[in-house]
Structures are given as C-alpha cells and as structure tokens.
C-alpha cells in the first residue's frame, strides 16, 4: 500500500508510488472520445478504468453524498465514482479518482471539492482525487499533463468528434446492423496504436487520417430513407453522457430520428476564445492573450481540415466552422458570456437551424444557472426571428421521470413531422454548409 502524502494545504496527493500501484477511475461522458483518452493515459503508464456503469444506484449514491440542490451532473459524476468505489470491484486502497476542473464562473468548477466532501462523508478520505485541468489548478507528483499528453488528448477529442459525426450520420441508415459501431471500434484502436509511434502529429498525416476515417464511414452501405433530424444541445455533460440524458440519442433513434450532436471541438476552441475575449473586454496579461489566441488558431486549423475531409462527400453534413458559430451567436449574446457553455450553446442552436435542422432538444440540469440565460432565455428570441425553429427544453434531475421527458420530446417530434409533411425535405442542408466549408478551407 502506498504511503499517503499531503501537501501544505492538507490535500492528499497522488504520488509516483501510487502511479505504479493504483488504478485511476474515470467517469464517462463521451463514450468514443473518453475511450481514446483512457488509452492515452495508459500509454503514459497509468492504470485507468473508464466507468460505464448506468443504473439507478448511481443516482442514489449521488443523492446520499452530494447536496441535493447541486446540479445533476455533479450528482451523477460523483455518484458514479462513489458507486464504483463501493462496488467491491476494486481495493479502495489501490484506487484514485480522476475528475476534470475548468475553473469557470459556473458552480460546475466545484465538482472536485464536492467529490472530496463526498469521499470524506463516505469514509474514503484516503482515496486521492486527481484534477485534470489546463489551468494549472492542482498539481500532483504522480500525475502531470505535459505538452505531449495535452496534444494527444486534443487530437483524441478531434478524432473523436469526426468519428462520432460520421457515425451519427450512418447508424440510423445502416443496412448491416452494427457496421457503424464496428468501424468506431476499429478506428479507436487504430488511432490509439498510432499515438504510441512517432510522427503522428504531422499535419499531412493528420489530414490523411481525417480522410481515411471519412472514407471508411462513407463506404458503409446505407439505406437513406428520410428521417427527422434532431439536434441536441445543452449543458455539456447532460448533452453528451447517456447516463445524464437517459440515453437520449438512443431514444431518438428508436423514434426513427437521426440525432445531430455538435462536437466538443467547438467547446475547446470556445474555452480558448474566452480568454481572448476577456482580454478585449477587461484588459489583462498580453501573454495570456497571445497564448490563448495561438491555441484557438491551432485548433481552428485542425477543425478546418476535418471539415474539408467530410466535405468531399456531399451526402454528409460537415460541422460548421467555429467562426461561423460565433458570428451567429453574436446576434444574440455578447462574447463575454462564457460561464458554462455560454454563447456557444445559443450559437449551436442557431447553426443547427441555419443548416436546416429546425428540431432541437435543449438539455439542461434542472435549475442550471447559465442555461437560464443562454438556453431557455434565448429560445423566445430565436423563435421570433426564425419561426421554423422547433425547440424543446428538457430538464434533467434525479426526480424527473423519463416518461415526462419523452412525452415532451414526442410533442416536438410530432410538430417536426407535421412541418416536414408541409414542406418536402430540402437539400438546403448541404448547400448551406458547403459554403462554410469553402471559407474554412480557404483560411
């Protein structure tokens, strides 16, 4: 058993020794992306277990150890970790917990503290909690994010986005069931294998990979029957995690819809862009401005390649550029609106409608503070300006029953089908987004 070492503030550290002996548990959010993250961490010598549990017990543990008025994602993430600790699957003296920390003005930044409180109350003070953040918040001798790891993680996110983007457009139409999922598995394995080797970050290579991924998914035999496309936006955890949104994507597919889920790349650029905008609004260190500006530019460039790769197949919908999203959102909110998903959430709704996807589920934890403004608060204005918008806001919390949520979504779908009946499906979707792509490629 590793020795327990504390820092000056009394925080339990994750030591070198622990790195060798311990397994780090990691909560699930984006199944494809996080699987790659796990692999990357393992490459660097960590033992990682990505939690895929999804049962009522998780919520109960959360309710037990987290203040019940705290936002639902905190309750779930912490509930999932505590549930795993208690499951008997692990030696509690040989595990640590991984959790992300953003440091924004939303209460979500408190997850790590709430998790420690929960561990304390459950009698697991000896389990170290490791913060994964890019703000240099909490440091641990046995865990560090160097440039190489960060770069790999960033690529994992972008690759993940591309894979999910393609998969979402194939799965509802696939002729051979399971074909899409098999390709996902194949690419996740292949890309993580690649991280082990050298030279995998060359631009040419990345572009080639993007093309190969798109080619591969585009070769899946599909039966393109018309389906209602439904965009999903919202608070990041609830938007992506099946545990958080009661398997929303699966539900939509079972209703014969194609879920359209904007990727996480924009969120990463958004976070970098926030620092740039903050500097413009309030002043501050020039270095931060330049650093963040560079990061923004760098990821936007990668996003451009990704869009170009998809664009080669007109039957697939490429993501739009970050700059386009930002321009759309600017009509509604200031760029200083950055807490939680900030203006990005409104931007995503606008972009979906702009590209012909009028049906949107706006997901949020019950009482989510930023979403009062950027989600529910903007819907009326969007509907006034864009009467074709068909948006339903759904709240998620431990007490909200699935039947209620699904009933509301069904109402939105009934409207969607009615609107679709009036107006036959248009090809506007592709025409519009290819404009964006052109611009992206040219930059």
């Amino acid at each position: 058993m590793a020795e327990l070492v504390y820092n000056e503030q009394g925080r339990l550290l994750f030591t070198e020794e622990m790195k060798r002996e311990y397994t780090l548990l990691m909560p699930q959010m984006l199944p494809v992306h996080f699987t790659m993250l796990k692999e990357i961490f393992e490459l660097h010598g960590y033992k990682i277990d990505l939690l895929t549990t999804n049962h009522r017990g998780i919520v109960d543990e959360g309710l037990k150890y987290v203040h019940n008025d705290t936002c639902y994602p905190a309750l779930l993430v912490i509930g999932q970790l505590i549930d795993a600790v208690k499951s008997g699957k692990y030696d509690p003296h040989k595990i640590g917990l991984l959790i992300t920390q953003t440091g924004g003005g939303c209460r979500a930044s408190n997850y790590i503290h709430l998790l420690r409180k929960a561990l304390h109350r459950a009698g697991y003070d000896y389990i170290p909690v490791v913060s994964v953040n890019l703000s240099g918040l909490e440091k641990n001798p046995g865990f560090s994010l160097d440039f190489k790891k960060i770069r790999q993680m960033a690529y994992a996110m972008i690759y993940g986005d591309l894979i999910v983007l393609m998969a979402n457009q194939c799965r509802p139409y696939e002729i051979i069931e399971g074909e899409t999922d098999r390709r996902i598995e194949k690419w996740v394995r292949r890309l993580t294998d690649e991280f082990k080797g050298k030279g995998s970050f060359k631009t040419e290579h990345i572009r080639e990979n993007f093309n190969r991924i798109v080619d591969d998914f585009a070769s899946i035999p599909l039966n393109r029957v018309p389906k209602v496309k439904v965009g999903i936006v919202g608070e990041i955890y609830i938007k992506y995690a099946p545990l958080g949104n009661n398997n929303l994507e699966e539900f939509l597919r079972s209703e014969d819809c194609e879920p359209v889920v904007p990727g996480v790349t924009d969120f990463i650029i958004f976070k970098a862009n926030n620092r740039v905008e903050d500097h413009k609004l309030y002043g501050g260190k020039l270095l931060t401005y330049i650093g963040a500006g560079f990061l923004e530019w760098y990821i936007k460039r990668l996003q451009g390649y990704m869009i170009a790769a998809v664009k080669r197949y007109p039957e697939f919908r490429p993501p739009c550029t970050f700059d386009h999203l930002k321009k759309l959102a600017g009509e509604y909110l200031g760029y200083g609106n950055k807490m939680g998903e900030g203006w990005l959430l409104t931007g995503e709704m606008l972009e979906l409608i702009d590209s012909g996807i009028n049906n949107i589920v706006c997901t949020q934890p019950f009482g989510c503070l930023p979403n009062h403004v950027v989600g529910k608060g903007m819907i009326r204005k969007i509907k006034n300006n864009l009467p074709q918008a068909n948006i339903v806001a759904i709240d998620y919390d431990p007490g909200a029953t699935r039947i209620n949520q699904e009933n509301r979504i069904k109402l939105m779908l009934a409207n969607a089908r009615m609107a679709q009946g009036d107006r036959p499906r248009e090809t506007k979707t592709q025409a519009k987004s290819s404009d964006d792509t052109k611009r992206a490629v040219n930059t």
Partner: protein
Amino acid sequence: MRIGIDIGSTTVKVVLLDDRDEIIFKTYERHMSKVREKTAEMLAMLGLKLSGSEVQVAVTGSAGLGVAKAANLEFVQEVFATAGAVERFYPSTDVVVELGGEDAKIIFFTGGLEERMNGSCAGGTGAFIDQMATLLNVTPDELNTLSEKYEKLYSIASRCGVFAKTDIQPLLNQGARKEDIAASIFQAVVNQTISGLAQGREIKGNVLFLGGPLFFLSGLRKRFVETLKLTPEEAVFPDNADVFVAVGAGVYAGNIAPMEFDEVLRRIQNASAVKNTTNTLPPLFKSKEEYEEFTARHNANRPPEVDADGYRGDAYLGVDAGSTTTKLVLITPDGGLLYTYYASNGGNPVAVVLEQLKEIYRRFGDRVTIKGSAATGYGEDLVKNAFNIDNGLVETVAHYRAAAHFNPKVDFIIDIGGQDMKCFKIRNRAIDSILLNEACSSGCGSFIETFAKALGYSIADFAKLGLFAEKPVDLGSRCTVFMNSSVKQAQKEGAGVDDISAGLSISIVKNAIYKVIRASSPSELGRHIVVQGGTFLNDAVLRSFELELGTEVTRPTIAGIMGAYGAALYARSLHLEKSGILGLEELEKFSHTAKSSQCGLCGNNCHLTINTFSGGRRFISGNRCERPLGKGKNTGMPNLMKWKYDYLRSLSGGENHRGRIGLPFALNMLENLPFWYTFFTRLGFEVVLSPESSRALYSYGQHTIPSDTVCYPAKIIHGHIEKLLEMDVDAIFYPCLPYNFDEGKGDNHYNCPVVAYYPELIEANVSGLKKVRYLNPYFGMHRPRDFAKKAADYFGEMFGIPAGEVKSASRAAFKAYDAYCSILHERGERIIEEARKNGNQIIVLAGRPYHADPEINHGIDSLIASFGLAVVTEDALAYKQPRRPVHVLNQWTYHSRLYCASDYVNTQPDMQLVQLVSFGCGIDAITTDEVRSILEEGGKLYTQLKIDEINNLAAVRIRIRSLLAAIEARREGEN
C-alpha cells in the same frame, strides 16, 4: 366508427365518434391507478354495440403511451391530438387552455402554432386543486361553491402545491374566510397558467377552455375569464370539454387502418394482465412474526398508566395547534395521560380547542385542577390569546421536552407531521441545527393522505396495505410533483396499490433523510434517535425509516401528540398556583370573529387578520413587526439591512444635461448603485431608479420570464424593466458584469452566471425594450484602470462624451463605491457597539446585497429586530477577517464575504449568523454547507432561511425563536 381513448394521470376518457366526427357515446371515469383494467372495462361497455364491426382506434394521454405500446395500438401525443380536434371543431380558436389532472397545456394557434406543456412542475393543475381542497377539508365541488362567495383574493404562491399550502395554512390558522381562500386557490391556478405556461405570450382572442377541472369548476372558469379580461364571446367552454382530448384522438384515428373491435378489446385486456414493475425495493416485512416483534418493541415506549376516570388532583394542559391538526393533552404531575385529542383542525383551530376544553371541563369537573397550561405550534399565539393560556413555547422546544421524557439521552429528534417536517440535534441539552422542510413537503404525511384519498382509501387502510407489499415501487426522493409522475409511471407499468403505498412510505423516509437532513449515515444523526409526529404512527413509514438507517429508533406510543405533551410538561415547569385559562363559564360565552385588513404603516403592507374574542381580547396576526399591534412604535432595534436599503434607495436624481438614464433597482445594481449613481451624475445624466419592488411589480413583468426556476431576485427584474419603460427615460442601463470587485478574499471574484448575464436575457425577452435605448455592455469592475479606458470608448461611442470626462467620472465612481463601503462598515460598527452597550444579542443576517430589498427578504430583518436583536449584514463584517481556507472553490465575491463573515462571527461571543438563501440559487447549494461547517467549527449555531416569492414568516419565526431558545439554553449551561 372511430374510438378515441384518453388515459390521463387520474382519469380515463373514451369516446365513440361516427364518420362525421360526431360524438355517439362518451364516458369519463377515475381509474384509481388501475389504468389498464379500467380502460379494458370501459371499452367493454362498447362491446354490445360494436362487437363484430371494424373500428379505427387511437390512444392518447400521459398514461396512454404504456397501454398503447403494450396493446400495440396507435398512440398520438395528447397536445397534438387536441390541436387536431380544435382545428376540426373550433377553427376560429386563437388559444387553447387545457388543464388536466397533472398536466396543463396551452396551445397558441395564431401567430405560429405553438404548444406548451407544464414541465417537471404540476403546479396549477387538477392535482393541485384536489390537494388544496383536501387541505380545506372540502370536496372540489364544495370548493367551487365556496369560491362563488368570495370578497377578497389573497396572493397564494402558484408554482407548486407545496408553496401554496404554506401560504394557505397560516391564512387558515389566522381565521381567514374559506370563501376567500377558495377563490384565491383558483386565482393561483390562473396565475400559474399565465406565468408558468404562457411564459410571456399573451393569452388573447378566442380562448377555448378544456379539461376536467375547467369543465366541472365554474369558479375556476370565472377567475380565468376575469383575469384574462375575455368577453363572453371570446371565452369558449365546449360541452365536451371533459373528453375533448379523447375526441381529438378519435379524429386522429380517422387516418388509421381499421381493425376488428373485438381484436382491440382483446389486446387491451391482454395488456392489462402484464405486470412488470422495473424499479422495485425489498418488502418492509418478510413475515407476520417480524411485524409483531417490531410493534411490541415500539409499544413499550409509553407514558405512565393512570386511571383517568378515578383520578383526582392537579393536572397540566398542553395544546399544539399544528398546521393541519390540533392536539391537546391533559397530564398528571408524573406525566400520565388523563385526556388526549388529535384531529384535523378543519382550518379552524380555535373552534376545535373550544370544543375540547369544554369536553375536558365536562368530563373532569371538579376532580382536577388545571395548574398550568401552555400552547405551541403554528397557531400558538392565536390559541393562547383566545383562551388565555398561561404561556407559549416554540414547537421545537416542546418536542424536545417530550422526547427527553422518553429518552433523556436523546440527541436527535425527527418529527414528521401533516405538512411539515422538523428535525434537530440536541447538543449540550440545547437545540442545535434545526432542519425544517420549507421548500418541499414531499416527505410529509399529508402527501400520503392526499394520495390515499385519490386512490379511494382511508389513510389507515392505505398504510396497512403497504406493510406486506411484495415489491414496493421505487419512487425516488424528490418533490411531491415529481413523485406524482413517478407514481404515474409505476401505474403505467402495472404496479399495485400495495406496492405504491409501501413505495410512498419509503419515499417519505428517503426525502426526510436525504433531502431534508441530508445525512449519509445513521451515525451522523445521533445515537439516540426519537421519532415523532403523526406520520410515524404509520408503521410502514417507521419501518422504512429504521431499514433505511439500519438502526432502531424510539417511537413513543403518543408520537402524534408529542408537541402537546411537551407543552404540558412545560406548563408543569411554570409552577403556577393556578392556570389563568378560561373556565367553563367563560367558554360558554366564548365568541370569535376574524376580520382581514391591510396594514399601511410601512411599505411591507402586511395582510393582517384581526381576531376578536369575547371579553374584548384581540389578536392580530400576519404582521412582521410590532407597529400595528399598537405597542409603542417600533422596538427601535438597530437594523443595518434596512439602513442599507434606505441609503441606496436615496441615490437618484441629478441634473439632466445629457439625458435621463434608467437603472433597474435589483440584483447587483443595489450594491453597485453608489458607483453608477456617481458615474452617471458626473457625466451629466439624471439617474432614474425603477420603483421599489413589490408583489405587484413582479406580476407586472411576470409575462416576460422565460425560465420560471430562476431565483426570485432575478425574476423580479422583469417588473423593474417594464416599469422603467414607462418612466420616460432616454436609456436604460443594465450592464453585464461577469466579474465583481476583487476584494482579495477568494481564488477569483466572479458574479454568479445569473447576475452576470441576466441583462442579455432581458434584452432577448422584454419586447418593449425595442422602443428605448437599452445599454447592456460588458464591463469589468475588477480592473479600475481598464474600466476607465473601456468605459471611455463605450460612452464616447454611445453619447459622444469626451474620454477625459468619462475617465474622471469613473475615478469618482470607484471612490464613491469605496466611500459607500466605509460608511457601511462604520454603521455596522456603531450598531454592534450600541447593541453591546444595551446587552443585546447581534444577528448577522447574511446573504447577498440584494437581499436588502424588503420584497425579497419579506421583512425578515424587521422580524428579527422585533425579537430584540440587533441586525447587521455580512458585507459590513467580511472586511474584518482575512481570506480563510475553505473546502470549496471560493471564486464569487459575494460568497467569499459569507465565509469571512462566518469566520468573524466565530470570534464574537454575542453574535450569531442567519443565512438568507433564495430558492433556486444553485450556488448557495455550495455556500450553505460551507458556512455551516465554518460556524460549527467555531461552536456556533447555524440558521438558514430559504426565501422565495412566498412571504410566510411562520417558519422564520420558529427558527428565530428556536435560535433564541438555544442561545438561552447555552447561556444557562455555561453558568
């Protein structure tokens, strides 16, 4: 032939239509949670007529989906079905308002079809009305009749039945007229429909009213028509409003392939045999033996035996006038029970006590001498004044006295009553950390009772059913409203009444433990737990509690009357020669009249109820302070919160050179006003403040609120902005401030997301702003020099003001803000000194600067001062203490002050902290735990007051009085 089936949360509606969509047959019945059986039964009635023929069938309704799936029939979403029928029968309709058992819907037809349903909230629905009728002890029909004779309307919170109850209960206890309350309940439903559902879209034009409640309740219809100002032609109440949605389904069925009627019936009948409940829990008792052992153990905790019929001697009387029930006990000096009474007060505790006192005199005559009497509970003051009872005590103390009688070592008490739950720890024989359920009554008895009634059982029978249920349903542990939908889901999946009964008991317990107490293990509660309150007489609840905690607890046999018992014990300790309570003769002549009026002595405009009793005794309730009682003017206790409000309110005016600039007097603008006032007056603007907040102001802007779950301080801004629009201003200034002043007390200095970005929400939702210049730029208050530069750019562009002028105004503004902080600190210092000189305790009323608004704090500051306590605020103390380590991310300026102020309170023996928390404040979910832990570290008591749009001060009184009692007990303990 077409059949439309609408299966709602409480009823099933079946209609048979001919090919022209004319109704041939209709039926409407409550399904008592036997969804599939009932549907099959109702459909079978059509068998004679339809057997052998082909029909088109569609199912709709919130509980219809499950049935349709199981029976493989076509399902149509209910709002969609309604819209179809409206287009078919009432094509000139502009808006449909449909209220159902648990659903409420609005469909807008003109200006873009839009359909809105209630979300996770069932406020303003039939279930809400049922619940309120139960509370008044009348049927919904009687409620309707009552409402027709109303004279005035009270404001009753409409968002959730729970809040409404807390509004209604004090009204009842204070003797308000039932007629007025009945109409007010309907008004609350109307308000909820307008604010919660319409969310800003105006309900006008031809309005079609549908659904059971609107069909059956004329009083409700009247409130709608009056509030919406509809002409008789515009308000349409169709004859088939009760089954309209089923008709919609029938119309929809016209597009579906026909099938044999017998096949339809067979499918539904077969579906009703399927039983699969997904989430179930282990049974409460495995065997009869286990149950018997359990009851034997608990029945051992009883008061001493006494022969009531033969007893002669002294006795003590205790009265507990609770929220829904009234309890009385008469005890012998050793605690033996001579007489007990426990029953619902039917909304009039005075009448109940009168009857019972007469009964006591009749039964015991001269045999006993009442040597002392005491009253407790919500109606304590009323009852005490009515009958000249010797003394009163706060209910927490009464419960503790009673619990200690059975278990002197008691260290944790939980009392679950009709609609309130109290639990508290006992530390050093003083009450500590009181937890009350203020925002939620889901863990309480009246919930089970309402449910039992809705399912057609008495509460006792319903509870018994649960004891031996094989598969209790897991209903989760949140608010009543959510539980209703969980039950709906369980019903849909075919759970039996016994499983639901057991599930409800378990839910109540989980709510108490995890929501109210928020304990993670029984050892956290205490080692000697006493449970009491009527709800624990329900063995299923008691058993669930023990199972959930994994420990045995003490439940006295008199669990239901512990408050009264404690009061009687207290009466005994008064050591009086003889009680002053009214004698039989006086009781015979007793009379009681209640009259309502409004106090106009200050801006709070309290609704007063003036009770007059025979003999000229008077009791006024509903007041926040002493002024309307005529006992001197004010207690004169210094109150910094009030000072702060008055001071900030005075900051308006200035000469108008460049124009009139309007500022909303709400949220962070309150604290930042010294800054902006100086800034704008320096620039030659006249500063115009929005009017003072009030309930009416809130209603005025209510229609533009997009998210109803945001906090009240944010929601009320809509009213401020709407009013500013009428005040002839040249521009409205309401900036976005993600960053607050950096006071160096935390890792960062943010504002919360709502404070930071609400100006943008206002811009997007208040359409009137298009008529005025609305300025909501981003600024950073944390960097004065950058602020000056950015402001110079902005105001240069907007008003052409030279940069130098803006920069100098901004320097003056920062100075003015600093000066304000100094005055505030100084004032606080003076109040503390004065209080110390007079030997008064000091309460730090901590929250946010905008809690100084009397409409938001509901006069809690004055209430506290009326107990002889000096009131200071957290922003006047935080500067005294350096930044302290905390267990949470400390990154919001307002919240960092809470931590420092708490830390400071720990160093001051004569100070206690009371935290104000706005309902819906997500960030306070974090701060409250931390403030509590800081205070407990310092051995202080933690008191939290949750505030919302409701203005019931009864719960606040309990806490403040318990706090005072605890301070007293601690002081005695020290001596």
